[in-house]
């Protein structure tokens, strides 16, 4: 299975009632890459996936390329895409084996070859022994795996997944997320998947496209997105961030609880806000810091501890710290923030 490159060239989508689901968007997905489309519901991510699949056509100016061929006007059944649907869309009138083999049967492949390929895919997706089962007799996790097996069995050029894990319980979802990440990587098919869950996007994808209101705000690898988001929306969507508001004077940022020295050239901050991740704030004795706050609560989380501070700025500040240091409620603490952890962001 070699990778196919996907290119979207200024694809937009306006529905007949006038709603703009997707603003003109151009993206490239490299051969073999796994791209996540991440965003809240209604951000246009599913529309984009359906345009790639061929279930929706882009507005007139848009073009979709698989490698060098323009597939814009080719219907889904001729695009050779494998797709996993949010509802899985498994065929209730067929057994597990028949579901997985359906795409091969359509291709008029011989019965023995279908059997071999189905066996192979079932082993890959850990479905051994379930071949004769009825779809209704499967658990949620098994259905998800059958849907994936059915999509990859005909060896598609690209694989598309629409919220592949959202129909599962939270516990199962965590487990299957890791399995899916390993499986997709081993397939090395160009993959695009849609999710609203940042943990899922981060765990599975090579690159994540964060979307909002029909626009792609940023496409980057997960670490870059987390540490260097382009704007406040991305920063908040890919992980919790504290918003600190104050007043910038030369390079000194003054807040209710003290001040922070910002590096040179950062003065272009709009709205006088900076963002800091929860785990980037260290708590030190108040005497050692120019910026102070008061402990409002501490919550033991097992592998970490969450401290909520008041009196730092107008908003409460959340800090994730080591689990075993004791903090009294009302105690005054100092905040230590490294300059490189300060996110200066355009507002959304």
């Amino acid at each position, binding site marked *: 299975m070699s990778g196919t490159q996907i290119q979207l060239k200024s694809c937009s989508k306006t529905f007949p009632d006038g709603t703009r689901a997707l603003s003109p968007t151009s993206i490239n997905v490299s051969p073999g890459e796994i791209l996540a489309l991440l965003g809240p519901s209604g951000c246009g991510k599913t529309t984009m996936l359906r345009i790639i*699949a061929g*279930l929706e056509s882009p507005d007139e100016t848009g073009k979709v390329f698989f490698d060098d061929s323009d597939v814009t006007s080719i*219907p*889904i*059944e*001729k695009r*050779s*895409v*494998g*797709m996993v*649907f949010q*509802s*899985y*869309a*498994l*065929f*209730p*009138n067929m057994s597990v084996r028949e579901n997985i083999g*359906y*795409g091969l049967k*359509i*291709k008029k492949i011989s019965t023995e070859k279908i059997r071999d390929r189905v066996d192979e895919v079932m082993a890959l997706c850990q479905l051994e022994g379930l071949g004769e089962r009825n779809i*209704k007799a499967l658990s949620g996790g098994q259905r998800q795996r059958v849907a994936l097996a*059915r*999509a990859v069995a*005909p060896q598609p050029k690209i694989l598309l997944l629409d919220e592949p894990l959202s129909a599962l319980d939270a516990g199962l979802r965590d487990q299957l997320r890791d399995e899916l990440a390993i499986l997709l990587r081993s397939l090395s098919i160009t993959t695009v998947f849609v999710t609203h869950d940042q943990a899922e996007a981060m765990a599975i994808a090579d690159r994540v496209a964060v979307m909002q209101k029909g626009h792609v705000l940023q496409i980057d690898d997960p670490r870059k997105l987390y540490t260097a988001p382009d704007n406040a929306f991305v920063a908040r969507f890919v992980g919790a961030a504290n918003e600190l508001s104050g007043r910038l004077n030369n390079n000194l940022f003054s807040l209710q609880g003290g001040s922070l020295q910002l590096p040179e050239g950062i003065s272009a901050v709009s709205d006088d806000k900076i963002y800091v991740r929860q785990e980037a704030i260290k708590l030190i004795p108040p005497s050692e810091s120019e910026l102070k706050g008061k402990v409002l609560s501490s919550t033991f989380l097992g592998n970490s501890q969450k401290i909520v501070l008041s009196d730092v700025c107008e908003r409460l500040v959340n800090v994730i710290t080591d689990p075993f240091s004791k903090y009294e409620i009302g105690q005054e603490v100092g905040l230590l923030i490294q300059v490189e952890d300060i996110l200066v962001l355009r507002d959304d």
Partner: protein
Amino acid sequence: MLLQRGNKMRNISPSFTFQLAVTLLACAFLLVPAVMSIMAGFTANYFKGISSGLTIKWIIEVWELYADSIGRSIILAIACLFFTLIIGIPAAYALNQMKPRFARILEEFVSLPLSIPGLALALALLQLYGTMSGFRLSSWFILTGHVLYTLPFMIRSVLAIFTAIDLKALEEGASSLGASSWQRFKDIAVPNALPGILAGSLTVVTLSIGEFNLTWMLHTPLTKTLPVGLADSYASMRLEIASAYTLVFFIMIVPLLVALQWLSTRTQKIGESR
């Protein structure tokens, strides 16, 4: 569970007794005429009562007089089913794929024959085709009326199950695997809609066999059907024969109704399990 029930049995409240009495009374109201009628069909002389003895000679006589009407009704019902199937299933499939608003308007049009009295519908057919005497005098004329009248039931039944199984999603799944629209229709749509198709079929057969209004206007003395023959026997035969005819009608229609009931509960369950 059992214990609870036992407790309830012991404290039978007056309101329960009252409800039971009303229910039994209503049942009697509905059932006694039917039982009387059936008994009349077996009684040698209804005016003398059961004391005149039981007989099946009336039933035999009905068979001799009206066998061709009964046969015609069965053939008509099967032919009607055939046409509603080959028109109704593709029509429902097409409606399901259309934009909802457009599909709703079309569905209203298809259902229009239901809101027009059968007599008016028959009159329209007579006005339109009455001069084509070959057609007018054959059973095909009645068949046309039956198909017109039963088609909406088939379409609605199949359309309902297409919605219940979320056919659109299933079809998207099939098309992503390379299936053409014909393959999707025969591999996915029809097999998964079978309970709805069966329910629709039973409705069509039951309605076709029992249809009177339309048929009465459209029939000729040579193309009588079961219900038309029934009316005929009520009007012109002695009471015992009419009753025996009713019995024959019951025997044919009741199993169909029971099967229909059973199927529609099953179809509902399919809808709910989604």
